[in-house]
């Protein structure tokens, strides 16, 4: 079992009031699953994604990642999990604007001490795989939206993470480019990667094999397709 959530709760203190963004979520995700987390805004899907991605810790409950207890980890341990086990793909790409495509892809490897020459080779390979072999020295503002998202996917892949976590990866792209990105995800899934998509678009979610629907911080439905 890759991911185990056991009664995960996240409660925010807003003034004197407590808001339960997640009100007890339990789920399991296996290796090489391809699933989508869906829900309207305010349903808690962002919070769920942040906790899944080890950017945030739950208020209560147990989160195990590869049998490691994430819910008890400190900042540095979380950073290490994010670095080695999770590849992020964001709606707004989140590339460093001043850095070239190659450098952006190298970035995760800087934080685990990969030597420069090895880093460059891995990053170049990753860019080749997403079809940007000829765009390595371009900066994000010299790339189209689809190309930027490919750079982000290449960046998510370089440390060979256990899961790829994509938050509305097609949200800022037109339909055709969005489809291209989804094709890349499908290929990655076929190559054995575990992919979790967060989206509110049905047609995007339909690419996956499993849809988890959230509403008001609770799991509404968990369906396999």
């Amino acid at each position, binding site marked *: 079992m890759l991911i185990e959530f056991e009664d995960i709760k996240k409660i925010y203190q807003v003034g004197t009031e407590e808001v339960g963004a997640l009100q007890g979520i339990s789920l399991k995700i296996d290796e090489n699953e391809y699933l989508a987390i869906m829900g309207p805004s305010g349903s808690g899907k962002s919070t769920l994604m942040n906790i899944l991605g080890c*950017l945030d810790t739950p208020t209560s409950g147990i989160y195990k990642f590869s049998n490691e207890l994430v819910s008890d980890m400190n900042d540095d341990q979380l*950073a290490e999990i*994010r670095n080695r086990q999770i590849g992020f793909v964001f709606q707004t790409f989140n590339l460093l604007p001043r850095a070239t495509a190659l450098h952006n892809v190298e*970035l995760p490897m800087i*934080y685990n001490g990969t030597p*420069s020459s090895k880093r460059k080779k891995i990053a170049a390979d990753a860019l080749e795989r997403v079809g940007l072999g000829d765009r390595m020295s371009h900066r994000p503002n010299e790339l189209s939206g689809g190309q930027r998202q490919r750079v982000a996917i290449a960046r998510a892949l370089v440390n060979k993470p256990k899961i790829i976590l994509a938050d509305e990866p097609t949200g800022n792209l037109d339909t055709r480019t969005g489809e291209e990105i989804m094709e890349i995800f499908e290929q990655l899934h076929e190559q054995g990667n575990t992919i979790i998509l967060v989206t509110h678009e049905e047609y995007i979610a339909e690419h996956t094999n499993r849809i988890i629907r959230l509403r008001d911080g609770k799991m509404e439905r968990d369906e396999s397709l």
Partner: protein
Amino acid sequence: MMRILIDLWEGIKIAFQALRASKMRTLLTTLGIVIGISTVIMIHSIIIGLNQSFYTSISALGSDTLYIGKFSWMSRTDWIEARNRKDMTLKREAKAIKEYATLAKAVAPTVTAQRAVKYESETLKDVNIIGTNDEYAITSNVVPEFGRMLSKQDVDHRRNVCVIGWEVSDKVFKNKNPLGRDLLIGSHRFRIIGILEKRGNLLGNNLDNQVIIPIGIFQKLYGSRRWITIEVKVTEPGIIEEAKDEITGILRRVRKVAPQHENDFAINQQDMIADMYKRLTTALYAFAFGVGSIALIVGGIGIMNILLVSVTERTKEIGIRKAIGARNKDIMLQFLIESLVVTAIGGIIGIIAGFVFAKIIAASTFLSATISPVSIAIGVIFIFIVGTFFGLFPAYKAAKLDPIEALRYE
């Protein structure tokens, strides 16, 4: 170890990338550091230069020579009081020391005046005329480059002869050989018997702009009621304190100082000037340190301010870096390195500027300046202290950012 080096190197590269993005701001930020470090370096270079010229300069005052007169160099005694003291005379004090001081190797009473000297159409104003005896060569450690010094006969018979300094020879006689020619001192003729080698400066006194004549003739021509300084060279350097005691005893006796009274004369020596000088340079160092510290604090606050702005501007970047696995200490290190790089840029400019200023000051004034590795070391130490200290808070702030909030920041 390898890991730390990679981290450092990456940090430096990131810092330069970030700084290149805002060159002007970086440059302006470093201004305080430039001023601070250049001040410290400049004053340090000048003090080192001063030290060198000072110690070469006071070496003209032998460390084993005593200078006896009415006035103390340290001027602790009241000048008016000292002025009213009995004059030193040849017949009383100089003679007594010569006769009774067993630890004196040479005794040379000296008296000085400033006169114009002339040869044919060449005149040199304000030359130091020194009246002394044949032992002056020993007490003041001078040797003639050409000719000879005053002899005992010259002094005893008050001959109209003189030994001229290097500059007098150079300026008045140009290419002619002065030996054997007659120099006009004021309105009196003196046969030139020797030319001194080049000696340089003694605390701003030009030792090459002088003419030495027998003291007897000096007193005859310019009056005998002038303040005499008796120069005494002791027999060996180690016994200078004993020699002082002995001379004190002799002088108290001949000057009839009552036992309950203090000495009405002063025995001066090179150490006293060195002490005074040390106190002066210590004050200068304190001043440099004060000005430098203030400028560095101001500069450091400037750097801290700019880094805080930079942290805010790059909140998103910090969020991205954290999301893909940067630990708090990675972010901390990144901003500390950035602080150090900015400080180092300012510091290096400051070190260079400091040296340039020091050299300009040295070239345009009587001061000298020496570039020393110690100055550079001081600069580097300041860079590290300021860069680390003022970078710490912004770096900590950046490191503590919440990755989710930072990612959301636009």
